[in-house]
């Protein structure tokens, strides 16, 4: 199909092509194959759903509508967080933006295409999951259920609109340099907030949990959440309310178009400001400190500085610790109440997270070296440089893990010792495995670091799991058990030892 050059559709095809080419050849083939199979399965899944609907009469119950609303709220929040991050990235994806914005194509059209791509990206997965069964259900005599994909498409447009406004707000408030990091933190926190809320019953003290439950019950009974209320329209649209779905999709499309029109020029200005960010001189804190003595110390210091000065990357690495928060709150509750019943699973979870964190940071310090030729041309020994990089990765991990370990030691000394030992082992094992098995990459590829390296994935998960098991057994049954499993974990780690990188000399 020939598209008119410079049209929105033509720009969209450009975006789609870039996205498609972004996948590696192997993963592209696998992904397409799996998606094909999944599509067929989802089409088939529509058959029992359609047959079930033949026996269901009347409108959806209030409870079903409320649960659907909660699910849609979660989905919409995740979509917004994704489009917020992607919108902010759009200001930094400079290579083609320079070209596009210097062309005679209106900036508003460039923005429209990019935002449509953001919306499509945000709703692609839910749309893919919802559309095939909806098609089957429609074919079996329930065409109103086509409302679900219409609703998802509308939510995608609305999420892109909200994400774009938020990104613009961040840009105006924080400037181009911090927008990307802030959007990353906000989008990750949105996901983590739902996780924290879903775990509230576990980590809140029992009286407070009961109070929250009572408030939620009262909220469910409020007229604002009664069937027919505007707040319930999305849930009704999801469950066959084609009128509500069309209304939401149309309103979203109008808002999206208005946003694109209003923000077009500002988008171009922001993109230009984003491009100039590197030209702004940035004094560094603590830059004039005394010089290092020796290659090991110089390398550790260099790596720590690089970690500290990449807040976007560090937020990616550290935000997963948010998921540890409920565990820590539970730990505080258990410790505060002088009980140790849940300590063993908590110790296992903390140990597992320690391994994950150490593996991530070790990948950053060892696999993303920016000036490998500088190191190779130096007289420093490769093994020494590798140890320095591993040390730099483990320093922040030790500082973070010291908090829960210190707390447990003060309350339950033996359990604290077991936790400390297993965390140390997990950190060291995961770090070593990352140093030994990681392939060179770029910091910007952090989220893709495990693509194409199944061995690294499997070994890292296995070793993290073994150390978590050691922590569980050590806390629950004593240090003897910890030593036994720790020996297995250490042996597995040692199997994957690789010699220091082979330099030319």
């Amino acid at each position: 199909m020939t598209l008119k050059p410079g049209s929105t559709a033509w720009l969209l095809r450009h975006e789609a092509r870039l996205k498609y080419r972004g996948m590696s050849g192997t993963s592209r083939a696998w992904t397409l194959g799996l998606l094909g199979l999944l599509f067929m399965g989802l089409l088939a899944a529509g058959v029992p759903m359609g047959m079930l609907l033949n026996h269901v009469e009347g409108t959806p119950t209030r409870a079903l509508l409320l649960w659907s609303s909660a699910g849609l709220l979660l989905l919409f929040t995740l979509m917004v967080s994704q489009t917020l991050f992607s919108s902010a990235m759009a200001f930094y994806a400079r290579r083609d933006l320079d070209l596009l914005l210097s062309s005679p194509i209106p900036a508003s059209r460039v923005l429209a295409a990019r935002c449509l791509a953001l919306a499509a990206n945000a709703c692609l997965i839910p749309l893919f999951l919802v559309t095939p069964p909806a098609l089957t259900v429609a074919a079996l005599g329930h065409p109103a259920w086509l409302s679900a994909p219409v609703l998802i498409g509308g939510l995608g447009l609305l999420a892109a609109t909200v994400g774009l406004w938020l990104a613009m707000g961040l840009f105006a408030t924080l400037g181009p340099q911090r927008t990307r990091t802030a959007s990353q933190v906000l989008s990750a926190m949105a996901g983590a907030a739902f996780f924290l809320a879903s775990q509230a019953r576990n980590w809140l003290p029992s009286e407070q949990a009961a109070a929250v439950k009572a408030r939620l019950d009262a909220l469910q009974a409020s007229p604002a959440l009664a069937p027919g209320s505007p707040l319930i329209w999305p849930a009704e649209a999801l469950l066959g309310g084609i009128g509500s779905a069309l209304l939401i999709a149309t309103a979203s499309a109008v808002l999206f178009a208005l946003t694109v029109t209003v923000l077009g020029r500002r988008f171009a200005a922001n993109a230009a400001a984003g491009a100039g960010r590197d030209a702004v001189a940035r004094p560094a804190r603590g830059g004039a400190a005394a010089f290092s003595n020796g290659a090991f110390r110089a390398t550790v210091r260099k790596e720590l500085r690089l970690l500290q000065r990449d807040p976007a990357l560090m937020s990616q690495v550290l935000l997963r610790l948010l998921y540890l928060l409920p565990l820590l709150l539970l730990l505080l509750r258990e410790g505060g109440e002088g009980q140790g019943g849940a300590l063993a699973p908590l110790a296992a979870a903390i140990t597992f997270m320690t391994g994950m964190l150490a593996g991530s940071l070790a990948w950053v310090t060892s696999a993303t070296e920016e000036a490998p030729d500088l190191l190779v041309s130096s007289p420093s020994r490769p093994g020494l440089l590798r140890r320095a990089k591993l040390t730099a990765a483990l320093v922040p991990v030790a500082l973070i893990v010291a908090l829960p370990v210190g707390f447990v030691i003060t309350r339950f000394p033996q359990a604290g010792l077991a936790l400390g030992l297993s965390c140390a082992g997990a950190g060291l094992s995961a770090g070593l495995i990352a140093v030994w098995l990681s392939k060179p990459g770029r910091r910007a590829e952090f989220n893709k670091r495990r693509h194409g390296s199944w061995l690294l994935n499997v070994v890292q998960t296995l070793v993290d799991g073994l150390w978590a098991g050691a922590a569980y057994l050590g806390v629950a049954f004593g240090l003897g058990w910890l030593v036994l499993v720790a020996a297995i974990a250490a042996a597995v780690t040692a199997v994957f030892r690789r010699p220091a990188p082979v330099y030319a000399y």
Partner: protein
Amino acid sequence: MTSEAAPALVVSGLRKQFGTKQAVNDLDLTVRAGELYALLGPNGAGKTTSLRMVAGLLKPDAGTISIFGADLGREPARAKQVVSWVPDEPMLYDKLTALEQLDFVAGLWGVESKQARARAEQLLRWLDLWDNRNQRCESFSRGMKQKAALAAALIHQPQLLILDEPLTGLDAAAARQVKDLLQARVRDGATVILTTHILEVAERLADRIGIIQGGRLLAQGTLDELQDTAGGGRTTLEDVFLGLTGVPSPLAGVEAA
């Protein structure tokens, strides 16, 4: 220049093949201590590959490299200790400041910290980067990056400095600073080997010039010696270079017509 002193670099029988392409083919090269040696050649002649092998970044398929008497294959640490490599793309960490960059490189070469700090100040002042010492390299212009990389390369006072296209992308003022610095290093007794496409630079700076093509050294010597070798009344280095490498003048056909 001290012709009696041990050579800074002796390369003999050096070979490197990439797939079916013979990048470096039995290269023999001797660079005297204390001279500025320019290695010239057309694109793909094997200049960078040869120098990367000398810097210890690539292992040759055959041949030996000796740096101030230290065999790079047998005593790599000793050989590397006296060499600095400055590629055309500066080896810098974007998120480090100029001063931190020098701190790190000094650490890699084991320079004592007080000494390194003093040298860093001297070098950065010399290259007009002292006021920018606490700025991250990501904010530097191309010329500033190149100068910062050069300062880092000099922090351990290498006896042999190897530069690949050091003047690429520099404005006139920055290019002059770099050239002055290289000449000053040679006056202080260091040896400099550089590659360049700007023949006037080689003509003005170099004590001796080597011309390489197809991975082989076609000729080497002073400009006068090269003119004699090329013969045919060739007076400029450009004439000599084009004559030796066999690249015809683009206007030859036009003149004939």
